[in-house]
């Protein structure tokens, strides 16, 4: 598998410089925002109150972090003991994903210093209330699931054993909170029956968001494992990834059925032939990013090839990104006096900055924490 014979060396210097610069840039932009307001660094306005940060950092960020709960559920709850080598990197990716979301929210929220108000002022009718609680609770669960790496590193035996004893309740809590959170991000847009384009609006948005999050979880594990095996020059559990990928076609098939069934149920199938931007995106997602990876992942040859696995996983990830942007930005109607919205360059700077922080944190964890553990004999030993 490893044909290169380069020396095993921790990947630093140029990467550190680039990541550091991006993080500092993001920080500077955030400070400008805290001094001069959201309008100073973004093109957000009263017509487009949510932009790039909600569509990408929040909606895509949370969806792409789903590998953590999928992998933890498979290993701890569904008896998939042999997938254990994938758990720690998946948990870390999920944990960092949620930290990225929280960081971005600290820029996007109008009053970030009042985030704790969610704890004391309740409104059980608000989907945003559920979203807020899920972010807080699941980030906490992920922190606990991640903590053994730190405890092991510093030889703290007692707290490590405590978390070990809680691993099953944590996995159950994680899967439950993730399901609520992934679906509630879809529910956020159920309050827009007249503003969201009919082809994308449906009360089933929570189910659709959840299904795509479940499908993208294994895809993200495939991507994360492949990339980190190359960057950190580690062995790759290709057989495990291939087996993990077997679930994806079933989820995508269910998703495609729900998408068609929903439009058929509301008698809106004719919208699919309107030939407008919204129907074009719909077909692109269903054919290119759902049906195609569904077929690919069901082929043995694809599941046994690292390159094909990665390509198919990228298709699933693209589908999730497309659907989140479509629902939260592209297919959302605007009042007729509103100008169109394109993100301000500094909005990108914030997004890139928090993602860079996440990548840097992953690199640090891979270097200093026992991230890649081999409980079962595997190719990594060669």
């Amino acid at each position, binding site marked *: 598998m490893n044909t290169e014979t380069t020396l095993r060396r921790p990947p630093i210097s140029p990467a550190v410089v680039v990541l550091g610069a991006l993080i500092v840039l993001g920080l500077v932009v955030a400070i400008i925002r805290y001094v001069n307001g959201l309008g100073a660094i973004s093109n957000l306005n009263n017509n487009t109150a949510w932009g790039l940060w909600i569509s990408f950092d929040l909606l895509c960020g949370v969806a792409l972090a789903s590998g953590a709960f999928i992998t933890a559920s498979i290993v701890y709850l569904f008896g998939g003991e042999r997938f254990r080598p994938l758990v720690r990197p998946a948990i870390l990716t999920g944990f960092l994903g949620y930290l990225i979301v929280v960081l971005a929210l600290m820029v996007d929220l109008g009053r970030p210093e009042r985030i704790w108000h969610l704890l004391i002022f309740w409104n059980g009718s*608000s989907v*945003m209330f559920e979203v807020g609680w899920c972010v807080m609770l699941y980030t906490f669960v992920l922190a606990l699931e991640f903590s053994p790496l730190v405890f092991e590193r510093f030889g703290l035996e007692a707290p490590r054993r405590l978390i070990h004893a809680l691993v099953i309740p944590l996995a159950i809590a994680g899967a*439950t909170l993730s399901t609520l959170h992934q679906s509630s991000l879809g529910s956020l847009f159920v309050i827009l029956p007249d503003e969201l384009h009919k082809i994308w609006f449906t009360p089933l948005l929570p189910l659709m968001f959840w299904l795509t999050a479940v499908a993208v979880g294994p895809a993200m594990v495939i991507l994360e494992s492949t990339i980190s095996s190359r960057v950190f020059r580690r062995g790759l559990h290709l057989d495990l990834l291939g087996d993990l990928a077997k679930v994806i076609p079933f989820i995508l098939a269910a998703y495609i059925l729900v998408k068609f069934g929903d439009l058929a149920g509301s008698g809106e199938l004719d919208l699919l032939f309107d030939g407008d931007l919204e129907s074009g995106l719909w077909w692109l997602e269903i054919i290119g990013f759902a049906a195609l990876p569904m077929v690919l992942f069901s082929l043995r040859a694809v599941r046994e090839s690292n390159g094909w696995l990665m390509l198919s996983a990228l298709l699933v990830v693209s589908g999730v990104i497309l659907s989140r942007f479509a629902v939260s930005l592209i297919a959302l109607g605007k009042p007729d006096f509103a100008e169109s919205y394109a993100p301000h360059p500094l909005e990108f700077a914030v997004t890139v900055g928090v993602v860079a922080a996440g990548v840097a944190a992953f690199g640090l964890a891979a270097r200093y924490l026992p991230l890649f553990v081999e409980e079962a004999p595997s190719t990594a030993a060669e």
Partner: protein
Amino acid sequence: MAKAILFDVFRCTGCRGCQVACKQWNDLPAEETHNTGSYQNPPRVSSDTWLVMEFREIENENGDGGLTWAFRRQACMHCLHPACVSACPVAALYKSDDGPVLYDNGRCIGCRYCILACPFEIPTFQWSEGLAEGAEIKKCNFCIDRLGAGMQPACVHTCPPGALMFGDRDELIAVAEARIAEHPERYVDHVYGKEEAGGTSLLYISPVPFEELGMPTLGSDPIQKDSESIMHIATPVVLGGMLVGLSGLYWVVRRRQEMMGKSAGSGRQGDREA
């Protein structure tokens, strides 16, 4: 008794006295604007302008040059079932018993979901306030301070042609329907806000169709009906179902593994790949 305002588009002359009165009473600063090619200014409500009169040119064969003016009041509709109140995660927005939809900015976390949820595009945010100033959500508050003193809202009080009328909602609906019945040639046969989105405290009657006036076409269900069903029914069911279901599943899987002999699972698959 729920208070309401009736806006008669037929009577409105577009003088914008209401817009100015709103600014004066609520002590709102002037807004820097540009010419957008219309008498209308600014283009929409904002944190400094809670009431804007929209100037609309409507095609009409009897009008001057085939066009007539129609003026739309753009301000909070004070819905009977407000989507913004349902959407607010910290219950900063609330519906008062008398009708006004009010907000406690001390609670607001600035998530701006209310802006998204409102079908009338009414709540607005202070985009140029930093942490020190503390950005807030702003919108029409029905002149709640005037109501408390037994006065009418400033916009109603100032309206020269009597296009605005303040009173009990039921009585205003009767007035609106009587005006339509008396002059069916003047009005579209519809009281906007009587049923829309579950009913609003702002009632409109108009000589031009409401879509041409720029009012959203809404059903009689509150905007948040599905979203609240999800929160009140689906979410608790999923929460309980997942906790019980996953615990049960874990128990079943574990028992089966115990019966099959624990060691089988992990070792066998791992060896094969080498």
